[in-house]
């Protein structure tokens, strides 16, 4: 019982990371109609931008988080304007392959700038809180913060999407692109906001991953598969679905370690994704796929 609770916590932490990535993937798919393969490397870059703020300015990882989010939002918009905007009117598959290329470019740049070895935000071991009432359940403060901040960001995204004109325009474009154009919704501006949110949340995912584990140039790339799985599970193009999908995938991946080797965690995400695509390709919340 205790083990299960403990693993549930790890699952929620991983789920938070995946949700942050999957919201962006889902929004980008909904509005730009392509699977953004560089999203994992957006996460990595966000984590390394955070590392620079920690190193240069001596910020704690939690204060480096907003800086990394802003930095990554800017990078995402620049990449969109330099690359994706020019091929907006081509077929989705061209955008998809271009984003794959962008993923490779970003990863190489990260290796050039920050090196290819493992790095950490803070050295030393963080002592977990021990909850004796729950049979000695141990909770790391970092984990609590990761889950809480994720919840806060999700609430922020929710408020943005439901309360602001731009947020509603994003949902409208995701719902029906042609009608959005006919209504006079400025597509390019909506697209830029989409990249700002997607980039910022990817950075959050990367920084969380860095806090929870370590930094490595392929940290995001290896997380991309479960992020896609989460987005598909929730119904691609549906940011709320991405949150649910992220939690389900994260918890399933961690729970699987009770039965099989931890090395198979990505396989669990892959298996869920394949099952979903076979039996309910539209996802839990009817997506736009």
């Amino acid at each position, binding site marked *: 019982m205790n083990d299960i609770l403990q693993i549930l916590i790890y699952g929620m932490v991983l789920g938070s990371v995946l949700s942050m990535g999957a919201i962006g993937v889902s929004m980008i798919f909904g509005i730009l109609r392509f699977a953004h393969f560089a999203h994992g490397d957006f996460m990595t870059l966000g984590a390394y931008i955070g590392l620079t703020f920690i190193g240069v300015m001596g910020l704690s990882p939690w204060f480096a988080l907003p800086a990394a989010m802003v930095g990554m939002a800017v990078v995402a918009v620049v990449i969109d304007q330099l690359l994706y905007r020019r091929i907006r009117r081509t077929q989705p598959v061209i955008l998809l392959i271009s984003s794959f290329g962008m993923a490779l470019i970003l990863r190489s740049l990260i290796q050039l700038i920050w090196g290819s070895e493992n790095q950490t935000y803070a050295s030393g071991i963080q002592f977990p809180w021990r909850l004796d009432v729950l049979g000695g359940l141990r909770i790391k403060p970092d984990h609590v913060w990761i889950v809480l901040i994720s919840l806060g960001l999700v609430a922020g995204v929710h408020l943005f999407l439901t309360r602001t*004109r731009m947020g509603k325009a994003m949902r409208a474009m995701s719902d029906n692109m042609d009608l959005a*154009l006919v209504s006079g919704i400025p597509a390019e501006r909506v697209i830029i906001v989409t990249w700002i949110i997607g980039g910022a949340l990817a950075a959050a995912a990367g920084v969380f991953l860095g806090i929870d584990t370590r930094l490595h140039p392929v940290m995001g790339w290896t997380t991309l598969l479960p992020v896609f799985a989460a987005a598909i599970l929730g119904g691609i193009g549906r940011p709320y679905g991405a949150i649910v999908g992220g939690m389900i995938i994260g918890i399933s991946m961690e729970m699987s370690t009770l039965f099989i080797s931890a090395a198979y965690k990505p396989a669990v995400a892959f298996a869920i994704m394949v099952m979903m695509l076979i039996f309910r390709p539209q996802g839990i919340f009817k997506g736009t796929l």
Partner: protein
Amino acid sequence: MSSSTTTLLDAQDIYGGYGGADILKGTNLRANADEIVVIVGPNGAGKSTAMKAIFGLVKVRTGKVLFQGEDITNAKPEQMVRRGIAYVPQEQNVFPSLTVQENLEMGGYLMTGDLKPRMEKVYDLFPKLAERRRQPAGLMSGGERQLVAMGRALMVDPKLLMLDEPTAGLSPKLIDETFERIKQINAQGIGVLMVEQNAKQALAIASRGYVLATGANRHEDTGPNLLADPEVAEMFLGG
């Protein structure tokens, strides 16, 4: 421009299509602010294409589209909306996951200032929508969705409302009701240009009608005259 009754829209000798062969081969359409203008014609005549060409969604290769005397040929939809032209596509004309109210807000996206008064005007016209303002448009019936679609278009206080088959897929009772609404909208001084399959009923409320065939004007007359024309009746109205 010399006219006492203002010519809102004047599409002159339009050729164009989706990039391949022209679908429109010399289409001429005019609409005034006090008119309901109906376009009828057989399938594939280019009725919907003509609407899209006027609204800038299909490329006009040669010919001119004038709105209030100004050239708007191939302008962007955003420009069309700003000038006071609203267009309701035939299908998928609502944002399904957005509520009725949000659909209306999106219709008024380009409008500056408070949207509330405009919204109330739409709710006055379609009281059914007021009751369901918090419901996602995707969960509504076909008839209600059509009201949402028209309501969204009306949010910009258009001078000209373009409707592509507003009664497609509706029950006879709802068809009557939709035509009633269109008359009401027109009575507020909004010009209406619409494509209709229910040609008889549509021509009955039309100030003028056009019969299109293979992308060009075949007949043009008042609604009643077109209805009475035996050739038109035989060709396009199913006898």
